[in-house]
């Protein structure tokens, strides 16, 4: 089997630079070479920020770590906190009560739903939808379209769409286009008819209203969003249904009812708006099946939503690795095995000690080393074109058994499908059938899923899974309370006096963007070492020692561009990963002290 490798790439054609890549979290740069037919033949993905959180954690109280690492990212807010408390609990051998397990699941799924919806409508939609074109729509036609794609959505009258259009018209006529200024609105890469564009614009606004509702579940259990509170040993939101003080307690009848309403709203929005929109866009862009790249080859998931606490075999979305596009063989994944997850820095702005190549996170070492290759165009502080034969990114290159892997909703879904998970199978089969029916295509799953569209679809399907299964979690929580269990925290090892002198642990999760792992070493009650390998480190990674390329770079190859100066297609495919750069580029060494010599002017 041949891996996608730098030695197959052709960087002789015209170089296109996109910096900043917008509508992502954090800072990212992308450079590509296009051939004489404007087809992308080389791609270079660069993380352009670095914060150094792990060195900041060194010597701190492990019980505080969740709050620090939560600030790795405010978009996937809470997922790092959750993974961190899991790492500490793993190290200290703490098992949390069932109620805390369920509440954490509900919070995690709340994030997933929120993140996926905001990603699709506010970060990704403008890669498919042309708001200026919506001005030409006939609201009656949009109304008919709305009723056809989603009969249950109440906002479907011609008058409603007329109002949205009028508002958009006034906005455009004001001459102040704000966020939509300098968009690529006459680029032929946009293919939606005006009626569909108007529907999507209406939903852009509806989603903006909706997203602030679902996160209120975080406010109930975690006190706020973004950045809700977590806790080692369980959850701090005590339960009191019927005793003195219940109305002032975090979890009571009122707040449980409140959460239930938000879950139902999420189900309705996902089924009536989000999923139909994704399917409609897919049917219009039916022949734009680019962007697969690594998704057709190597996929990784740590598994998530464990139904029976501490029994990974009961994960709703199971763990596993697929290599070389062989869906018939799901390899087991062990994040503790030093041979499996390793990080390389040959093309990253870090340096390892002599003779070291790939390092497991428990033994991770990182010394920043910002240096540009000889073929760089520009200067150190004004880079025009990067030299990808040398170091070119603040992102490291993690590999699983030496392979570059794609992570995220699509890998989770392919692995779950290949593992025979019924709920997922039904969703995926239903989607493919309706796509084929709408388009007249006869695509197989392997032709359809590994693509930019497939990535976007998997995210929407996962949103549905989260909304549906969150309702199950809610009922299970109420059932457990009914059975007399109101415990939310295990405090046996809260006091560091009860900890071993040394311990190490790992916390894993499937974050909105893919496989997430935090590795911790604790010594004398303090953090000795902390490493996080996050989804966008996998997907956005530069090349490794062998020249194997990461998922972002692989996905762009062979994509034709309508107009190379307007990066619509590049943005479309990069956005399908939902890049999160603050997450990917925070890794730092243990000896950060040496770096603080610069004077404040």
């Amino acid at each position: 089997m041949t891996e996608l490798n730098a030695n197959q790439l052709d960087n002789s054609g015209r170089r296109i630079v996109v910096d900043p890549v917008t509508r992502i979290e954090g800072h990212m740069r992308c450079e590509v070479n296009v051939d004489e037919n404007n087809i992308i033949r080389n791609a270079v993905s660069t993380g352009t920020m670095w914060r150094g959180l792990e060195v900041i954690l060194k010597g701190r109280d492990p019980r505080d770590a969740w709050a620090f690492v939560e600030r790795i990212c405010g978009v996937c807010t809470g997922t790092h906190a959750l993974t961190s408390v899991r790492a500490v609990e793993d190290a200290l051998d703490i098992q949390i009560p069932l109620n805390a397990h369920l509440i954490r699941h509900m919070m995690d799924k709340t994030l997933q739903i929120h993140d996926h919806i905001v990603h699709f409508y506010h970060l990704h939609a403008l890669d498919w939808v042309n708001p200026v074109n919506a001005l030409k729509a006939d609201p009656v036609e949009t109304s008919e379209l709305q009723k056809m794609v989603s009969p249950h959505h109440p906002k479907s009258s011609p008058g409603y769409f007329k109002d949205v259009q009028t508002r958009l018209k006034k906005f455009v006529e004001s001459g102040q286009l704000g966020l939509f200024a300098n968009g690529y609105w006459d680029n032929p890469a946009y293919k939606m008819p005006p009626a569909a564009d108007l529907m999507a614009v209406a939903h852009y606004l509806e989603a903006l209203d909706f997203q602030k509702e679902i996160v209120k579940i975080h406010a109930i259990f975690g006190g706020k969003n973004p950045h809700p509170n977590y806790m080692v040993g369980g959850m701090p939101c005590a339960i009191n249904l019927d005793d003195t003080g219940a109305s002032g307690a975090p979890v009571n009848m009122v707040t449980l009812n409140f959460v239930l309403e938000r879950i139902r709203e999420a189900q309705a929005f996902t089924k009536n708006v989000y999923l139909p929109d994704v399917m409609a866009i897919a049917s219009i862009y039916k022949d734009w099946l680019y962007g697969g790249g690594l998704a057709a080859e190597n996929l990784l998931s740590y598994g998530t939503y464990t139904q029976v606490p501490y029994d990974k075999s009961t994960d709703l979305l199971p763990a596993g690795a697929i290599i070389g596009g062989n869906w018939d063989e799901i390899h087991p994944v062990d994040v503790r095995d030093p041979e499996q997850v390793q990080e390389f820095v040959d093309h990253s702005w870090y340096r390892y000690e002599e003779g070291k190549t790939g390092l497991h996170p428990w033994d991770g070492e990182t010394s920043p080393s910002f240096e540009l290759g000889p073929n760089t165009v520009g200067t150190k502080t004004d880079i025009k074109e990067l030299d990808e034969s040398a170091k070119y990114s603040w992102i490291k290159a993690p590999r699983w058994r030496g392979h570059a892997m794609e992570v995220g909703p699509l890998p989770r879904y392919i692995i779950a499908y290949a593992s025979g998970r019924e709920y997922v199978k039904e969703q995926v089969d239903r989607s493919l059938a309706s796509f084929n029916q709408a388009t007249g295509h006869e695509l197989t799953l392997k032709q359809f899923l590994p693509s930019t569209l497939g990535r976007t679809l998997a995210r929407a399907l996962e949103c549905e899974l989260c909304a549906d299964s969150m309702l199950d979690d809610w009922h299970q929580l109420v059932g457990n309370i009914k059975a007399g269990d109101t415990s939310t925290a295990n405090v046996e090892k809260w006091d560091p006096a009860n900890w071993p002198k040394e311990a190490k642990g790992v916390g894993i999760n499937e974050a909105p963007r893919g496989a997430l792992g935090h590795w911790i070493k604790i010594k004398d009650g303090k953090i000795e070492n902390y490493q996080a390998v996050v989804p966008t480190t996998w997907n956005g990674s530069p090349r490794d020692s062998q020249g194997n390329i990461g998922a972002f770079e692989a996905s762009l190859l062979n994509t034709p561009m309508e107009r190379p100066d307007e990066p619509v297609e590049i943005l479309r495919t990069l956005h399908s990963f939902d890049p999160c750069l603050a997450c990917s580029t925070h890794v730092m060494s243990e000896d950060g002290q040496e770096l603080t010599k610069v004077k404040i002017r």
Partner: protein
Amino acid sequence: MSQIETFYDVMRRQGITRRSFLKYCSLTAAALGLGPAFAPKIAHAMENKERTPVLWLHGLECTCCSESFIRSAHPLVKDVVLSMISLDYDDTLMASAGHQAEAILEETIQKYKGKYILAVEGNPPLNEDGMFCIVGGKPFLDQLKHAAKDAAAIIAWGSCASWGCVQAARPNPTQAVPIHKVITDKPIIKVPGCPPIAEVMTGVITYMLTFGTLPELDRQGRPKMFYSQRIHDKCYRRPHFDAGQFVEQWDDEGARKGYCLYKVGCKGPTTYNACSTVRWNEGTSFPIQAGHGCIGCSEDGFWDKGSFYDRLTDIHQFGIEKNADEIGTAVAGGVGAAIAAHAAVSAIKRAQHKGDQE
């Protein structure tokens, strides 16, 4: 002029009558503590203002401030973005990228010289010639200074831009600094918090648009309307503090009854923010209500003030009984701290009271 959709137009379009609109203006004036004379001024502003251009830059950050901003319920963020401001540059949300995005930044700076608001999320790192945060191939620091030069006003969103926040916590490997360290010739409105509350963010912006002036700031540059009181001052659990009723351990009887979280580390007594009044997510809750102590995220250097679960021991502003220091020493583990002492006194009172009852 008629082409521009004002805030008033938005309200009318949503079916609000002129009469209700004027009532809204009076209530807004009252809510802001401005008195009835200001109501016509608010109405006038909302009827006539063009949309003010806003450039929203991102340095080293986690985007939690942007995420919080879009949670705003009143005003709704769609109305802020479509009808109240012109968000010309925001790399998290803008349609264009690369050269086209950079072009907009330049265009607004040139066209609206001295008239745009610069909003900064995150902060610049100074190490490695600023290249720990690169935008358009250059240090973010350059972009920040460039955009600051001709701004009418500068807002520091969140604790990163205001104080430095997590990347500036010890040992601050990238040498990230709050923006007032590199922009020294202009007043900066600090809106700290990790993140700030959504309605606090939109409240600051709408105040500026409505009154055409900066909100009154405290000595540290924070709007007094949101940051002049401690969370503890208005906490719904405060009576339990005064009564000496505390959560002693997670998930204990006190936790279930909603007692005070001071003993498990709550930083509410030293944190200036609006969490206990405005609350979070459209007033749904706030950290203490959900059972976890305040971690003090709107305070300068809150990451480096000890564990979030350590009891506060350095507060001196509470009046307490004569022998309080002594009692405090016993309870708080040897640190002579007024607040610990106060808590201890409360606890003893409670014990006495309990004795009376039994």
